[in-house]
């Protein structure tokens, strides 16, 4: 039995219980009183929950989470732990990026608010512009015009909420216009979406999710309209579509509890889909597109499309559908989530080029919307993504490659292709002649996560669910007769189809 070693009374005998219960009792009181007294700015609190416990909740077991949510949602203490503490402690410990709660109660990723050094700003502008220019040239060679849309950060749209003094730091403010000017100077067609979105936000409309950095459906539609007007002018298309909605099937608007994206909520460490997380999500407008009109049914290569959109997760909120509607013409969409902005254009170039061997549609334009924070990272320097994408314009095409016979360790050959038995299959190359270029060509049909293909120190992202074979090209430092290709897969059981290994010099 945990008998105390001493039964003697000390000053703490009374003080400790008093302090303990003072802490427990004072916290809910402070939660109520401090905001009323104006001690805590209202912007430092978020998502107070209503007391909406019903008899049904009492019976079906929801009363506990609801009371807990009520406390957590209203609590200054919880705010302190969720945001303030997150900002200070976790940034210090490297456990999560800092999240700043703005005066509008919304969440901002702290490192996107920071001022940048002047020289750093110029370097980042140049780096991003170099990449965009290269991509533009490649599309130009194929006969399509690259059109770039710059998507501003939330902080740029509402600096009055994001920054203590309501002002964006000078270099930070000049960054996006700097990219725009640099691209224009290089002859790249570019549209800065900031004016359109700022104009809409200034009217009190919500254009970005409260708990997420992505634009919402409304912001997506505003941007699509601005982009459509611009494309129509640039491409000399016909007059704008003035109909409020298409004459055929229309999209349906509804509200749903919770943002469809949760990246910032995740930073606050709530387990995804947990009752706690759900309590912190707000009602959001959702738009359902009828079958056949969603981006998943708008893949590149359809007949009759005038353009294609290569877009990151921003494409999930109806951007392609809205653009098609506003433009009054069919467009295709390649939407790649979670891989940054550079990946979709690379994939478009490597797999679904505007002029492909199957004689698919020639596009007039390729629209590439790029969020500001991807540009801040130099587009190709991706802190957030684990591997480089196959870079289709990193050098001259590999020529005179010779297919070689190979065996794959950790995978078995079946009539339908190779099936991996481990997470690290290997292909050992042992050739009579020296080679310094290796190309692995294959497609995969595994409905799973991407993997890695590695040769020596070079790593390429292994793409899954590719309809046509993808080439993974490697250049060795010096000619050799022996090399090993390593595949790193999240799990076994990947199907590798039409696998070819080619070497050359």
């Amino acid at each position, binding site marked *: 039995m945990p008998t105390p070693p001493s039964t003697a009374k000390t000053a703490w005998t009374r003080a400790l219980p008093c302090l303990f219960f003072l802490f427990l009792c004072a916290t809910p009181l402070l939660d109520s009183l401090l905001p009323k007294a104006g001690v805590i700015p209202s912007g430092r609190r978020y998502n107070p929950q209503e007391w909406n416990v019903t008899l049904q909740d009492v019976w079906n077991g929801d009363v506990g989470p609801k009371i807990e949510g009520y*406390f957590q949602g209203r609590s200054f203490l919880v705010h302190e732990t969720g945001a303030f503490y997150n900002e200070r402690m976790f940034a210090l410990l490297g456990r999560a990026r800092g999240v700043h709660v703005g005066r509008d109660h919304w969440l901002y990723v702290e490192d996107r608010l920071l001022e940048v050094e002047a020289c750093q700003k110029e370097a980042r502008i140049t780096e991003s512009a170099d990449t965009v220019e290269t991509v533009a040239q490649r599309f130009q060679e194929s006969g399509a015009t690259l059109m770039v849309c710059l998507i501003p950060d939330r902080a740029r749209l509402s600096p009055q909420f994001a920054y203590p003094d309501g002002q964006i730091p000078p270099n930070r403010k000049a960054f996006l216009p700097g990219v725009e000017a640099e691209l224009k100077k290089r002859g790249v067609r570019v549209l800065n979406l900031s004016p359109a979105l700022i104009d809409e936000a200034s009217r009190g409309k919500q254009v970005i999710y409260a708990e997420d950095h992505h634009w919402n459906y409304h912001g997506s539609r505003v941007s699509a309209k601005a982009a459509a007007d611009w494309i129509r002018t640039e491409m000399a298309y016909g007059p704008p579509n003035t109909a409020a909605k298409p004459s055929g099937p229309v999209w349906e608007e509804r509200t749903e509890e919770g943002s469809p994206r949760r990246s910032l909520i995740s930073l606050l460490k709530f387990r995804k889909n947990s009752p706690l997380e759900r309590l912190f999500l707000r009602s959001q407008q959702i738009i359902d597109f009828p079958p056949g009109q969603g981006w998943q049914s708008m893949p590149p290569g359809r007949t009759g499309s005038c353009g294609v959109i290569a877009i990151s997760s921003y494409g999930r909120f109806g951007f392609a559908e809205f653009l098609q509607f506003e433009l009054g013409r069919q467009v295709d969409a390649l939407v790649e989530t979670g891989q940054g902005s550079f990946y979709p254009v690379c994939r478009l170039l490597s797999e679904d080029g505007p002029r492909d061997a199957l004689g698919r549609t020639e596009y007039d334009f390729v629209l590439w919307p790029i969020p500001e924070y991807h540009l801040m990272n130099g587009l190709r320097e991706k802190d957030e993504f684990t591997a480089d994408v196959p870079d289709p314009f990193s050098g001259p095409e590999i020529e005179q490659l010779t297919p070689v016979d190979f065996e794959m360790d950790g995978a078995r050959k079946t009539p339908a292709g190779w099936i991996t038995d481990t997470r690290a299959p290997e292909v050992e190359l042992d050739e009579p002649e020296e080679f310094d270029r290796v190309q692995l060509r294959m497609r995969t049909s595994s409905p799973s996560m991407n993997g890695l293909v590695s040769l020596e120190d070079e790593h390429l992202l292994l793409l899954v669910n590719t309809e046509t074979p993808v080439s993974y090209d490697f250049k060795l430092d010096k000619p050799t007769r022996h090399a090993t290709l390593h595949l790193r897969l999240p799990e076994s059981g990947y199907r590798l189809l039409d696998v070819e290994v080619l070497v050359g010099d």
Partner: protein
Amino acid sequence: MLFTSYAFLFLFLPVFFLLYLALPAKGRVYLIVIGSYIFYGFWRLDFCLLLLGVSLVGYLGGLGLAAATEGRTRRAALLCSLTLLLAALSWFKYAGFLGESWNGLADLCRLPADLRIDVPEIILPVGISFFTFQSISYVVDVHRGMQPTRSWVEYFAYIALFPQLVAGPIVRYGDISTELKSPVVSFRAVEQGIVIFMIGFCKKVWLANNLGPMADWAFSLQEPPLSIAWLGLLSYTLQIYFDFCGYSDMAIGLGLMLGFHFPENFRAPYRSTSIAEFWQRWHVTMSSFFRDYLYIPLGGNRKGHLRTMANLLVTMFLAGLWHGAGWTFILWGLWHGALLAVNRAWTAAPRPFLNGANPLDRLACGALTLFVVMLGWAPFRAADLQETMAMLRGLFGGFGSDSLALLDGRANVLFWIALLLGGALVWVERRPGNRIFQTGWGKLGLLLLFVGAVHELGDQAYNPFLYFQF
């Protein structure tokens, strides 16, 4: 309700405790019953009916045993009570498992499809194993001669007493029968209770919750390499200790605040030098329950070596099954049963080494004990036998020995601190409320740690106590 939830800390506990203080000693037991049912009903109100039913069976069983004078009638009353209690436990805890096992067997033997059964989807009521065992211990003790209580409120308070309701310690009626009649609250006991509660809270939040993600990740790998497997297993070894020990400390502390002295549940178990000693230090109230109500009635060690070993295996098999309806828990129980049997055989024989004769030998005994206990945690933590085998294979290098670089940012500073501090604590900790926290500075430091832990809690994902699932 979790002890580590805001609703408990900032609503339930202050309100309950203030009312408790305001009531006269005789009236407190009524408040305990009401408060405990609110505490339990916080999860699901309908489960309160189960708690009520189990309490009623135990209470009436006790009265029936007291009323029966003949041996046969007493046995019938005992049998009736135990059958009802075990039936409730079996239905809620084991019906699904038995159904799935039968279907698995039917598939294996390719039996006709109509022999398969529809497995019922039953939600496991939190803490059912604990309060059912308390009821069982009560009726058995009454059968053995303990005077039963005639006060329904005292009995219901005993079963439902919220500090120990959902995860123990398993308290026997005799331990707290006097205190139930008239719980006395003193400043000194409240202070000590708060100290022990805060220690437990910090163990859970600062140590167990920061170690958990690493263990979860390591066990989720299909092919854990050597270093990751051991790091994951070590994390889990410490996590389960600080999680469960933390909960027990909180329960003991809350009990002291209310005027109850609960038995100690952990006595630095990882410092044991034999597996038999481990079970005298780990989850003491459960192991003593199995000893007194199963092992000894089976014959204990009084019927020869072979029978003793069989008794150990049966007891630990059921202890494993008590923890969960799954083959992994059965495997864990049998592993410990086998270890106890081997230990018994070893200690009965002349031992040239591993006899604890000198400090170096004791160190070797301790290391060996910790090693086998840790191996046992592999099936205990794994989701299924396949995951168990993967982890065991990984522990012995079956999936290579990749470096810790694979961790790739999963281990943050708090994890390493928890690992090192936790590792040190299991060696130096003696009991809750130990000397360092009896000083003024110690208490102030502990209070700050507690406030920090409440802050930390707000940022952590929902982390229920591991032992709630049992």
